[in-house]
C-alpha cells in the first residue's frame, strides 16, 4: 500500500487510534502516557500495534524475566501507564502494580456492596459467571482514571491512586452463552460499554448518557473511528452507532462474534470466518473493499500492519491477507500451524496476534509464545514457553512485555 494512502484517507476518515503520533508518544514506547485523547485499553488503542516497543524475543525462567507478580487469573489483558500496571483478577479484583518492580501498590474489590440500589445489588449477586468469568473485559485508562467492567454488570471508575470515583450498574440480561468479554472503550469523551446493549457513560460521573438496545453485543470489543466530524462506534456484529447520541446509522457492515473489528487507515476490518475490509461512504453507507474467508473458529482479533491483515485461528494457525486487494481474495498465509499440526479438539488460542516493534507475538492458552517477523514471510524468530499460559493478549511498553501466566503476571525484558 502506498505510504500516502493512509494519510490521504486520514483526511476523510480519521481513526481515533492515532498512528502518526510523535515517536516518543508512540504506543508501545516506554514514555507513552495515556490521556483522554489517547487512552490505553483493549489491545492498547484497539489496534494491537505497539510500534514504539522494543521487546526481547527470547526468555526463559532464568533469562529476561524482570519480575513476576501473583495477581490471580483473568482473561483480560493488563493495561499500562508510564509508571503503573493495572490488571483485573477473578472474580472481583482491580489491582495496581508498580511497573518498575511489580510490587503491588493497591488493590480494590469491586462487589455489589458498592451498589446503592437493592434491585441492582440483587441482580449483581445473582449473576453466575460461566466460561469467561467475571473479568474477561480489559480495563481502560485515560492516565488519571481506570475504568473496569465486570460481567455481573458492575462498572467501576477508580483513580490511579486507588480511590473509587464512581460505580455504575448495567442491569441487562446476558445475551451471550459463555459470559461477557467486550471491553470498555473511551471515545470522544464518553465511556462506551457493550454489555448486551451499547451504553455510553460520562467518564467523570458515571452518569448514563444513552443506551442503544438494537446493537446487541457479542464477545468482541467495539472499534471507533471519526468520519468527518462524526465519531462512530462499530460493533463486532456490524452495527454503526453515532457516539454523540447513540443512534444507529448503519448495520450488518461486517460480522464477527468472538473477535473485535479494527478501524485503521480509513477502513474497518473484520477478521473471523468472513474477513472483510469495509469503507464507509456518504451517509455512512458501507462498501466492501475486499473480503476473504477463514475456515475454522477464530477467537483473537486481527492485526493490520505493513499492508497485511494477520490473525490466528483458535487452533493456532496463522492467516494473513493482502490488505491492498480488491474484491474476493485468498490469504497470502493460509492456515500455517504455529503450534503443531495436531493440537487436539479444543481451541488453544484465545488471545490476539500483537505487534511489538517489528515482531508479531502469538501466545497460546497453554503457555507457548511464538515470535515472528511482521512480514509477508512471517519467519519464526523465536519460540518461548511459560508455565501455564492464559487466554489474555500480551501487552508491550518500551522493553517490557507483560504477559499473564496462569495466576501470575510476568514482566519480561532486559
Amino acid at each position, binding site marked *: 500500500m502506498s505510504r500516502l494512502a493512509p494519510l490521504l484517507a486520514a483526511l476523510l476518515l480519521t481513526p481515533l487510534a492515532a498512528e502518526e503520533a510523535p515517536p516518543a508518544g508512540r504506543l508501545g514506547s516506554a514514555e507513552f502516557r495515556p490521556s483522554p485523547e489517547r487512552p490505553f485499553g483493549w489491545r492498547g488503542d484497539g489496534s494491537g500495534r505497539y510500534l514504539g516497543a522494543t521487546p526481547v524475543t527470547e526468555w526463559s525462567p532464568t533469562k529476561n524475566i524482570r519480575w513476576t507478580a501473583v495477581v490471580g487469573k483473568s*482473561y483480560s489483558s493488563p493495561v499500562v501507564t508510564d509508571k503503573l500496571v493495572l490488571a483485573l483478577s477473578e472474580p472481583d479484583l482491580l489491582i495496581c502494580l508498580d511497573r518498575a518492580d511489580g510490587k503491588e501498590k493497591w488493590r480494590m474489590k469491586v462487589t455489589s456492596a458498592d451498589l446503592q440500589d437493592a434491585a441492582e445489588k440483587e441482580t449483581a449477586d445473582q449473576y453466575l459467571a460461566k466460561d469467561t468469568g467475571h473479568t474477561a473485559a480489559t480495563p481502560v485508562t485515560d492516565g488519571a482514571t481506570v475504568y473496569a467492567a465486570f460481567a455481573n454488570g458492575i462498572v467501576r471508575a477508580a483513580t490511579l491512586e486507588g480511590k473509587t470515583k464512581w460505580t455504575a450498574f448495567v442491569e441487562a440480561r446476558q445475551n451471550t452463552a459463555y459470559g461477557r468479554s467486550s471491553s470498555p472503550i473511551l471515545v470522544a469523551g464518553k465511556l462506551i460499554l457493550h454489555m448486551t446493549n451499547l451504553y455510553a457513560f460520562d467518564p467523570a460521573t458515571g452518569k448514563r448518557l444513552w443506551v442503544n438496545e438494537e446493537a446487541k453485543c457479542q464477545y468482541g470489543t467495539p472499534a471507533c473511528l471519526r468520519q468527518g466530524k462524526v465519531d462512530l462506534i462499530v460493533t463486532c456484529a456490524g452495527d454503526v452507532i453515532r457516539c454523540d447520541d447513540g443512534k444507529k446509522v448503519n448495520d450488518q457492515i461486517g*460480522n464477527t462474534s468472538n473477535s473485535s473489528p479494527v478501524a485503521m487507515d480509513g477502513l474497518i476490518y473484520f477478521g473471523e470466518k468472513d474477513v472483510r475490509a469495509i469503507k464507509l461512504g456518504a451517509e455512512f453507507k458501507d462498501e466492501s473493499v475486499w473480503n476473504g474467508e477463514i475456515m475454522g473458529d477464530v477467537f483473537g482479533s486481527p492485526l493490520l500492519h505493513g499492508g497485511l491483515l494477520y490473525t490466528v485461528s483458535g487452533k493456532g494457525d496463522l492467516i494473513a491477507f493482502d490488505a491492498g486487494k480488491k474484491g474476493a481474495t485468498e490469504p497470502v498465509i493460509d492456515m500455517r500451524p504455529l503450534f503443531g499440526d*495436531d493440537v487436539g479438539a479444543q481451541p488453544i488460542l484465545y488471545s490476539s496476534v500483537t505487534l511489538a516493534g517489528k515482531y508479531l507475538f502469538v501466545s497460546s492458552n497453554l503457555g507457548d509464545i511464538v515470535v515472528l517477523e511482521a512480514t509477508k514471510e512471517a519467519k519464526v524468530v523465536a519460540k518461548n514457553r511459560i508455565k501455564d499460559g492464559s487466554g489474555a493478549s500480551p501487552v508491550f511498553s518500551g522493553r517490557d512485555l507483560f504477559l499473564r501466566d496462569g495466576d501470575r503476571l510476568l514482566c519480561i525484558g532486559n
Partner: protein
Amino acid sequence: MQRLATDPTQGTKPTRSAGFVPTVGRFLAIAIVAVLGPAAADPGEPAAVNVLGSADFKPSLDRPVGWRGDWTGRFPGATPPMTWSRRVHGITTALRYQAAKPAGDPTKDSKPLEYFSIKDWLVSGPVSVSDPVKDIDQDHLNGEPGVQPAEAGKNAAGWKFLRADVDTQSRHDHNEGTCGQSYVDFVYAFGKFTADGPNPKIEGDFTNKAAYAHTYIHSPAEVKVQLQMPFDGAAGKFWLNGKPTALDPKNRGKVFDITLAAGWNRLLVKIAVANGLGKHYSGRWLSAWMVAAYLTPVGPVSYETRNVTWMTKVTGRSMSQPIVVGDRIFLGANISDLMCLSKADGRVLWLRTTTPFDSLPAVEKNSPAIKEKVEPLVAQLLKLNEEAVAAINAAVSPTGLPSDQAAALDKKLKEKTEVERKVHKAFEDLDRKKYPPYFGNEVSSSNGTPSSDGVRVYWTCGGGIKGPGAYGIQCFDLDGKRVWTNHEVFGSEEHGNHQSTLLVDGKLIFGACNTMVAMEPKTGAVLWKNAKMESLGSGTSPIAARIGGAGVIITLKKILRASDGVEICASNLNIWGDPTPVVDNDVVYNTSRFRGWDDLTSMCAIKLPSGTGEKGSVKPVWDPPGKDLATPARGTNYTIASPLLLDGILYGVDMTGGITAVDVQGQKGLYRRWLDGYNRYNRYLYGVAASPTLAGKHIYVVDDAGYTHLIQPGPQFKEVGRNVIENIFFSSISNNPCRQEAFYTAPYFEGKAMFLRGEEYLYRIEERTASKG
C-alpha cells in the same frame, strides 16, 4: 457399574389419571386425538390402522409427519429389531481386555472393545514426585516394565479396579469439563467427593503426584494396531509389554503404531501432574489428571453387519432426522441438500440443493448479474449433484464402503460442496446483506427435519455464520418437483439454528431468532409474521397444541395463536439447552428446566391458558427443585434431547447420557442414572443429543458414538439391549477420537424397520441375515 447414590429407584408405580390411559388405549388416543397434530381429529374416527410407526401409516395435512415423527417421539405401531451391529471386520473386533490379571484364555469377564475404548483398569497411586516432568522416569513400582498387577493383591502399590465411564468422571461440564472421553480420572479415583450436583466438593492432595493405570489386552495373533492415549497432566508414559514410550504433552491425541503380541499383552500408563485440579473461571475445580485409551485398526478398514438392510451415504454432516412418507424417505444433509431415498433399497431417488437462486422470480433470474455470476455455477452444481447421486447409489450396500473406497466418494461430495459454496459466495458478492451464505451453521446448515402432509415435503436450510443468518424455506412434491422456495434473512443464533418446520391448522410454520412466519403450504405465501419472538433459541423447535379447538404454537419463550401469530402469553418453560418440549392434555413438559448455575437443572410442566386471548397466562403444574428429579451431573449439565412422555412417565436424557424418569402425576422421581454408554461429552460432539424415542415396546436412546440403548418403559430402569454401528471414516470432522462416525439424531421407525442417521450414512435396520464386506 457404580450407580448414583441418589438413585431413587424403589419400584414406584406411576399414578394414572384421566390424562394417562393404559398403554394400548393411549396409543389409540394419540392416533385419534393427535394432541400435537394440527387439527383435532374426530374422536369417533376409526384409527387403529393408522398408528404412527405402523407400516400402513399415511401422513396427511391433518396428521403430518416431521420432527420426531408426530412431534412426540412415539412410534407405537413399529416393530423394529432389538439387535443389530456394524463392526470392524478384523482384529479390533477380536481383541479382549480386562483389568484383572488373567489366569488363562479370555473369559466372559474379558470385554470386547466397544467404540475402540479400553474401559476397565486397575489404578494405583497417588505417589508424590518432586517434579512431575523430570520425575516421569522414576520407577515407583519397583519394576515398572515387568509389573503384572492384580486387584488389591500383594503388590504394595495397592491396585484397585476402575471402570472408565461417565459415572467415574469427576466433572461433567460440557465445555471445559473433564468428561470428553472415557477417561481414567485419577482425581475421581483418589479424591473424596462430598456431594454431586453443579458444585461437588473434592478433597485430596493432587499436587506433584503421579499415578498408574494398567489393563490386560488379549490378541488372538500378533497384529499391528493403533493406540491413542489422550491425557491431561504434565507428563505421561506408557509401557506395552514392558517397552516404554513417552506420551507427548504437545500432541495429546498422537496415534502410536504398536504391535500386540499373540495372547495377553500388558498396557501400563503413568501420568504425572503438578496440580491435578484445574480451575474453571467460575471457581469450580476441574480434573486435570486423566488418561484414556483407544485401540483402532490400521486401515483400510472393512466391516461386517447384522440386521443392516442397506446403508446409504448422505451428502454431508447434519442433525436432520429422516421422515418416511409412503415408499420414500426424506432427510436433510450437508449445507442445503434435501435427499429423497427409496425406502426399499436405499437408492437416492432425487437430491435437491437449495440456494437463493431457487427463490428468485424469473425476472431476477434473467438479470445480467445472475446470468453471468450465478447461473453457470448453479448449472455446475446440478451436474455435480447428478454425479453425486450416481456415486452414492453405486455404493449402497448392507455393509458400506471399505475406508479406502470411501475416500473417493468423499472427494466427489467435497467437489460438489465447494461449488455450492461458490454459489452462495456469488450471491453474497451481489448483496451480502440480503444473501448471507447459508453455510457455516453449527453442525450443519441442514439440521432441520423435513415435514410432510403426505403430498408435499417441506424443509428449511441455512442459518449460516452466526449473526446474519439466511434461510431457504422450501416445498417439493414427492417426486422432487420444486413447488416454491422462500428466502428469508432472520439472523442466526450464537450456536446456529436447528429448528424444524411445523404444520398446524393448515399452515407451515418456521422461525429463527426474533421472527416466526406462517406460510400457505401450497404456495409459500406468507400468511403472517411475528417479529417480536425475543428469541426462538438454537434448537427448540415449535410444537403445536390446541386450546378450545384452536391451534396454538408453543415456542421457547412464547405461545402464539396459529391463526394470526398473535402472542397469547409467555411460555415460562425456562428451557436450558436445546430440547423441544412435549405437550399432552394441555400440559407442556420440559425435562431441562434451568434453575441457575448453582442448582440442579430440573424439570417442569405448565398448563396452557384456557383460551387464546392475548392476555392469557400459563400455570405451573409442577416445578419441583432438582434434588429429586434432576438428571445426574457433576457440573453444569446440558440437554439437547427432547423429552419422551409415555404412560404417565416423563423420560429425559442429558448430554452425559444421564437418564431420568419421573412420574408426572405423583411429581416423583422414579429413577435417574447414567447409561453405560460411549458418548463423548464435549462441545464438538454433543454427547447424547438424540431424543429418546418409543418404537413398539421399547425406548431407543442413541448416543453420539453410534450406540443405541434399548430401555424397557416403566418405573424401573431396565436396559434390554445395546447395539453399535462402527464406522471409522478418515475425513471425519466430528472430533470423535477414533474418527468414529457421530450420531446426533433419533431414529425414525416404520413397520419392522428403523432408519438411523449418522454423520455419514443413513442405515436401514431390520431383521435379516449377516453380511460381510
